[in-house]
């Protein structure tokens, strides 16, 4: 019963996220509204973390699998892509690498500056 209850709470928050997505004219998906809502509910203790924790971490653990259908769906966009696939792949890989390195190094640098001595 515990898992049913937890899953119910998570789905209810997702549903509220969907409602916000319909009501507000911003390009923000229901899942992001839901995430922020869940965070607010946890902080205000409307939802106790014990009441979503087990199922929540289970869902996070199996998250990579949820991307399989969308990634297999790349097959479908191939006709639109095949003319520019090489620049496309180079841009995607180069830009992702650049963002990852810069974001990580800047964070690390500022955190160490903040912490003082330990470099």
């Amino acid at each position, binding site marked *: 019963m515990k898992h049913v209850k937890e899953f119910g709470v998570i789905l209810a928050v997702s549903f509220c996220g*969907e409602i916000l997505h319909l009501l507000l004219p911003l390009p923000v998906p229901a899942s992001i509204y839901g995430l922020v809502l869940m965070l607010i509910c946890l902080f205000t203790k409307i939802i106790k973390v014990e009441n979503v924790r087990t199922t929540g971490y289970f*869902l996070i653990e199996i998250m990579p699998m949820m991307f399989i259908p969308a990634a297999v769906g790349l097959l479908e966009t191939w006709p639109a892509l095949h003319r520019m696939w090489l620049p496309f792949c180079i841009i995607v890989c180069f830009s*992702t690498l650049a963002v990852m390195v810069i974001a990580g190094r800047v964070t690390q640098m500022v955190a160490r500056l903040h912490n003082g001595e330990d470099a």
Partner: protein
Amino acid sequence: MNSIFENSAFFGVVISLCAYGAGVALQKRFACDWLNPLLISVLLTILFLRVWRIDYQTYSNGAELLGWLLTPATVCLAIPLYEKFGLLRRYWKAIGAGILAGVLTGAASVAVCAMFFHLGHEQYVTLLPKSITTGIGIGLAEELGGSVAITVAAIILTGIFGNIFAQQVCRVFKISDPIARGVAIGTSSHAIGTAKAMEMGPVEGAISSLSLVVAGLLTVAGASLLSRWI
């Protein structure tokens, strides 16, 4: 034979899960980071569909169920974020600076590449939202007049790239701090990368979740403000 697949509600999920299981088993057997379970499962599924001549629609009839779980799973990313909120309070300057630098690097690197390959404005705005989560990225590409199908492809490819290479990149570029790793992964490769950050550690995962949300919102805000010039 195909009609069995076409009428099945479970075939798509079963083949995806089996492929993922095979990916995990291969990674364990050869103890190699490059054998990424997500990548292997996608390739195996595509191969299977090709060999049996099953079209994507038939597969996605059932497999959609997995995508359906994505919204509740994303909502649950709030839980590690809540549990590690003290870190965020303590390091908010570093985290904020990292995310901002990442978002700017993303826009600049795509612009430089677009110039290098002589791509037009439409391709530029198509690729611009590649580092942010699909739901936000689609909205942004539509708003700026890009091609949504290609944006989705770029977003997913970005995520898979991040998922596969996150560990190596952090090692090679000496990003050792778990908070910095979280920011790096969440800012560059959104939810698919965050799935990897979760495996790396709870701090990485929590900060990565935060970064994907903040980077997504920052990109939308920035692009909407600057849309007249880009």
